[in-house]
């Protein structure tokens, strides 16, 4: 098979209107016969061009079918889209990202409706991120609005946006774990079971959660009894549709995480025991590294509030994807990326259990490893967290980190450091191999050590490595 062949995007198969293909590093979308009428209608309104210019919908350029070759055989049109820096999924997003995605979706629905356009679904996977900016990517979701039609995507919106947000806003439970396990979203009936009686008095919850679930159960039994003529009397007037969207939008805008207590690591930035001097030294080390190597893509594993990611960008890194398991830290990181308009994308990740490949045929959603194309990795204050905090053998930690990128910075915190003493306080010290010498030996199996610097009085060591391959 030639390198030039077009490959179908594994996640783009449900909607027969068209599909995404990759060819020679470019992204194309086919528009099939059945979707042509709607496509031309929407195109004539100019809505998508306007939204693309505003950076809310992905840009699309019509190209010749020959650009895509055989894959375009049945297509009437072929579009080309710009590549995204990093593909991510709703179960990897921190709360504010999911919220921003939900608001974008509703805003687009509302604006589209005013142009006589409706969206054919409400999938959270139709939103991607560039930094902290959500981007709607499903060009073919837009079609002509038919008077009186229902909001077809309502259930999907609830299960893929609203309920995950409510899980955190009402109960203080982060959406990531549940969502990752149920990639089509949180089931309406299941979620309704969690709602305590007193909450059911809230009109919004009553409508979109309780009543929704109850009608879902009612509907299951109704098929035998419903007559077509009875249902014919029903429709959703446009004004009601609009009102429904607008009210939902207003509600989503108010949602915030329930638990306002500071989480373990986001306090870290204030109280980790680093002096300002040490932060400066670390920052300088990172900046120096980035200035010399100018990596286009950096992964900051354990990015905390994004301070070093920001420093890397300032020093000339192209894009930084940050990973952390602490929700509070991620929220601050996201706020930073948004406020400063950084090319920094903070995502939820438990490094001991990275996102696997999943979905249909275990190929629909990429795993973390499938998206590993970082030129540099930052692993600050991470090694001890995995080796001591989670009992991962030191050699294994080094193998994994170095495997992520050909070059990078790793921090080694010695056992005598107060941070580790804290971790070992109530545990047996079963880590005889955890010392600087062993660490360096493990690292040298794969890489040469370009530079080191001790950044604290307690002996914390930053190392810059270059993989031998």
């Amino acid at each position: 098979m030639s390198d030039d062949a077009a490959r179908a995007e594994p996640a783009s198969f449900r909607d027969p209107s068209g599909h995404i293909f990759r060819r020679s590093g470019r992204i194309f979308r086919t528009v099939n016969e059945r979707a042509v009428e709607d496509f031309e209608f929407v195109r004539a309104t100019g809505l998508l061009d306007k939204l693309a210019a505003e950076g809310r919908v992905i840009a699309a350029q019509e190209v010749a079918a020959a650009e895509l070759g055989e894959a375009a055989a049945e297509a009437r049109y072929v579009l080309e889209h710009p590549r995204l820096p990093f593909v991510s999924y709703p179960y990897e997003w921190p709360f504010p990202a999911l919220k921003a995605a939900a608001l974008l979706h509703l805003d687009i629905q509302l604006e589209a409706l005013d142009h006589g356009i409706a969206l054919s679904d409400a999938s959270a996977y139709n939103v991607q991120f560039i930094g902290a900016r959500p981007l709607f990517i499903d060009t073919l979701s837009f079609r002509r609005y038919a008077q009186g039609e229902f909001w077809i995507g309502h259930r999907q919106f609830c299960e893929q946006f609203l309920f995950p947000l409510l899980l955190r806003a009402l109960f203080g439970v982060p959406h990531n774990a549940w969502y990752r396990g149920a990639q089509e979203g949180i089931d309406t009936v299941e979620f309704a079971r969690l709602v305590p009686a007193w909450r059911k008095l809230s009109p919004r919850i009553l409508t979109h959660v309780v009543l929704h679930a109850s009608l879902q159960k009612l509907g299951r039994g109704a098929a035998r009894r419903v007559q077509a003529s009875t249902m014919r009397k029903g429709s959703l007037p446009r004004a009601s549709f609009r009102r429904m969207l607008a009210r939902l939008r207003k509600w989503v805008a108010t949602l915030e995480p329930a638990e306002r207590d500071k989480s373990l690591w986001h306090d870290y930035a204030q109280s980790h025991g680093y002096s300002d001097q040490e932060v400066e030294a670390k920052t300088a080390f990172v900046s120096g590294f980035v200035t010399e190597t100018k990596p286009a893509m950096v992964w900051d594993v354990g990015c905390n509030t994004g301070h070093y990611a920001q420093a890397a960008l300032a020093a000339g890194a192209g894009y930084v994807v940050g990973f952390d398991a602490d929700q509070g830290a991620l929220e601050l990181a996201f706020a930073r990326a948004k406020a400063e308009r950084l090319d920094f994308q903070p995502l939820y990740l438990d490094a001991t259990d990275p996102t696997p490949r999943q979905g249909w045929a275990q190929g629909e959603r990429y795993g973390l490893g499938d998206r590993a194309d970082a030129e540099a990795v930052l692993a600050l204050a991470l090694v001890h967290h995995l080796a001591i905090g989670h009992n991962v053998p030191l050699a294994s930690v080094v193998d994994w980190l170095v495997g992520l990128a050909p070059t990078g910075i790793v921090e080694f915190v010695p056992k005598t450091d107060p941070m580790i003493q804290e971790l070992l306080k109530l545990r047996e010290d079963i880590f005889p191999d955890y010392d600087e010498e062993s660490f360096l030996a493990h690292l040298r199996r794969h890489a040469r050590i370009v530079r080191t610097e001790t950044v604290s009085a307690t002996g914390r060591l930053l190392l810059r490595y270059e993989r031998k391959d």
Partner: protein
Amino acid sequence: MPKEQSELSKLDIAIFVVVVVAVLDPGARALAYLDPATGSMLLQLLLGGVAGALVVLKLYWWRFKEFFGFGAKEAGAASEETTHERQAEE
């Protein structure tokens, strides 16, 4: 609390959704590929106004009657349907 009706055949559900959506969309083109789900449609009927509310109330009424054992004897086309299904189940 009445027990949930025995599992509907997938065909029943498919027919229901197709009928509901096709009938309610006067400019019916090819249907959206997404399954809208009954509960969501009924909810929107309710939110849409009085006519919609009446439909939903009717469904609750049927369910209520069934609970008391007045199941199948509905006037009009429904009885034809349920008779047919009862025959199929035998």
